[in-house]
């Protein structure tokens, strides 16, 4: 190789490198002036699979959220090495129904993952979600473990308690992000709902989120913005959350709650535990940041 060739190569490579560096900017959302009252749908039924379509019906079905050719992230809670009956993870049938609805809506790619608390593979298997996903024979569904290389540092421009978080790239880049938490007890945040479930896209040391948890979750919600939240309250964990383990702590409600407004969805789901929206610090903090509605009387609640 002569000098000229060498220099040419160097130029070309470095050009490639500079264009390949991921640069992600989160544009601060405009504070919504005066939004119409958000729709919150609450459906009840024994068939959890069909319940998903039922709860989405009043919101304008899945087609309102997923367009043809969209890259979709579905983020269930499968953080714990617990089985579906123990109510620590999102019910596999709920996740499966959502994935299949998105497939029918023409999504280009559907990504399902969670950064777990217990050992990753055990959580995926024991939650029953791995089996449910394997039953869907469609190459557009990607069910995988997060890749440690793909957590990107993101500036939380509007953050009051955190300024920087590492967030999973796929979650940031998705056209549609669907949050599918399971509603359950949590001793620090009282309940874990949609906002808490977003912690599953965080990299780094998540334990430090727990110091001033409510505000930090709201800060996170300024950058991780689900288009749709479906809260799984088919069975809820009343005590010893967030991982439970004792069937006696589980109450069967056969319910799903869905909304395009993440705060309203959390706020309404709180009432299923006979608590008030104001009892959950993350709901309050997110409301104050203008991320959604928390006053039940200002919501349009539809029993589907």
């Amino acid at each position, binding site marked *: 190789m002569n000098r000229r060739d060498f220099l040419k190569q160097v130029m070309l490579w470095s050009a490639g490198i500079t264009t390949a560096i991921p640069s992600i900017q989160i544009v601060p959302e405009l504070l919504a002036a005066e939004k119409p009252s958000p729709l919150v749908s609450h459906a009840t039924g024994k068939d959890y699979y069909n319940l998903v379509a039922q709860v989405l019906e009043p919101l304008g079905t899945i087609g309102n959220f997923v367009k043809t050719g969209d890259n979709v992230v579905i983020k269930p809670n499968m953080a714990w090495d617990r089985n579906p009956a123990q109510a620590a993870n999102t019910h596999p049938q709920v996740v499966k129904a959502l994935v299949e609805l998105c497939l029918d809506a023409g999504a280009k790619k559907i990504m399902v993952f969670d950064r777990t608390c*217990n050992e990753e593979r055990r959580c995926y*298997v024991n939650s029953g979600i791995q089996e449910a996903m394997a039953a869907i024979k469609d190459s557009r569904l990607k069910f995988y473990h997060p890749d440690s290389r793909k957590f990107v540092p993101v500036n939380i421009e509007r953050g009051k308690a955190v300024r920087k978080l590492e967030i999973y790239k796929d979650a940031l880049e998705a056209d549609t992000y669907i949050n599918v938490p399971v509603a359950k007890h949590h001793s620090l945040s009282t309940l874990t709902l949609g906002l808490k479930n977003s912690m599953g896209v965080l990299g780094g040391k998540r334990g430090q989120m727990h110091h001033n948890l409510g505000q930090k979750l709201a800060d996170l919600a300024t950058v991780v913005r689900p288009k749709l939240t479906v809260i799984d309250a088919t069975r809820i964990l009343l005590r010893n959350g967030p991982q439970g383990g004792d069937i006696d702590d589980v109450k069967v409600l056969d319910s799903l709650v869905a909304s395009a407004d993440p705060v309203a969805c959390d706020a309404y789901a709180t009432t299923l535990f006979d608590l008030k929206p104001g009892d959950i610090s993350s709901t309050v903090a997110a409301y104050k940041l203008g991320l959604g509605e928390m006053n039940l009387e200002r919501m349009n609640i539809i029993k589907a």
Partner: protein
Amino acid sequence: MKRNHSNLRYWRRLSQIACFLLFLFLFIKTDYSGTNELTYAVNILFRIDPFLAASASIANKTLIWLMWPALIFIGLTFFLGRFFCGWICPMGALLDSCHKLIPHAREGGITRLHTLKYYLLGFLLIAAFWGLPAAGYFDPFSILVRGLAISIYPAINVMTTSFFTFTYQQMPVWVNSITEPIYAFLRSTILPFRQNYFELAFISLFILLTIFMLERLERRFFCRNICPVGAFYAIISRFSLLRGKGGSKCGKCKNCMTVCRMGAIDENRNISPLDCNLCLECVDICPGSKISFGFQQKEVARPSFGISRRKFIGTLAIGTALPFFLDTRTMAKRPDPYLIRPPGALPEDEFLGRCVRCGECMKVCIGNGLQPTFLAAGLEGLFSPRLNARTGYCEYNCTLCGQVCPTGALTELTLSQKHAEKIGNVFFDKNRCLPYAKGIPCIVCEEHCPTPDKAIQFREAEVLNSNGEKVSVKQPFVVDERCVGCGICEAKCPLPGQSAVRVTSAGERRNPQNALPTQSLLY
């Protein structure tokens, strides 16, 4: 020179390659695979090892039936001699394959140390009897698997991952469209699921490399002179039926003597069954086709081991005396409180007697919690497994370590037994724990505590934080009766450096001396 067209050695090589690949396959499969039970007999290499079976049985003064497959190879050796060393042993296969890569220090004139292995075997077995179990330090499979599991395999993962991280972060898209599928393929096949970190990684590597460096002195130096498994087989081979017979009338080429990797052929072309590992290289190379192998027991005299009685008795005497010095150390009176043994571990003496330091439990531990012990359990506890909960915790629903243990040093537990198995107890350091020390809310430990009725509970307390403000925080405490010592609280404690909650061996089931104070009977 007349070329001989015999090709027995190719069959041997085929067998070596097949056995080595099987070994690697089982090594990689020593991992969680989506079910609670392992699907392959991944520990089989250790269970067919008669030396480890003997040592563990002698140390425990009981026959360890888990190791019955060793009997098959003892039986086969009575017929075939040390075929194991030449045809099966993965360490031997590795040494043979690396032979050409390792330059020899000098040709010929090699010190003959081949009796050393008999002394060593005698020493190890008698020391095991008197309470100094050191078999795992010399067993080739322990050295090999430990080196692979603790050092080489994690290092391969570091290398591969750094390479593909570099391409992912620094290379243009078209490069990634090639490299990413390769990486995904490697991840799903040969690479470990996650990066593991181990104490003593370098020492384990160094011990393994030493065996390869010894090849410089002499081909198969370890096998000829040190290997206690080889020594065990050599003793049986003295009675073996299949033997090599050197030609009595032939030229002076001595090709057979030169080619013999075990130094089993002497000046007069007598092939010693004690050392011959039936590689059959000599049969292939002999220009006159004078060498043959056959069941010809009566024609060949039983060779002597060449050991001196006086030295051997001396070795046994040392092996007998040395273990008594172990009980003079402080740890005989006060064991290390942070030495937490894996779930299902036998009481310490029995445990160490059986543990062959193979590293299988550390390889399979899905939390990367099991680490090789350095000196915390004494010289005789080197490389035995312990839980280092700050590196990784013991997964509540996992029973894999008991499943891979080849000797039963770790009992195989059912899931419900595992849930009730107490390996230690945690203690809070209130000077570090945030709700106590700083008035900062936290309780990550409580969140992760896996027992259905949480062993970590909390009390609401009004405290002054560092700004002097009165705040209400949840302060954690442990309920000893529920704590199993899994250490997930220590692993997940968000403090940098040392955790504010630490597991100790207090209250471990296997040691009544370690019982926690109670005000009433527990059961």
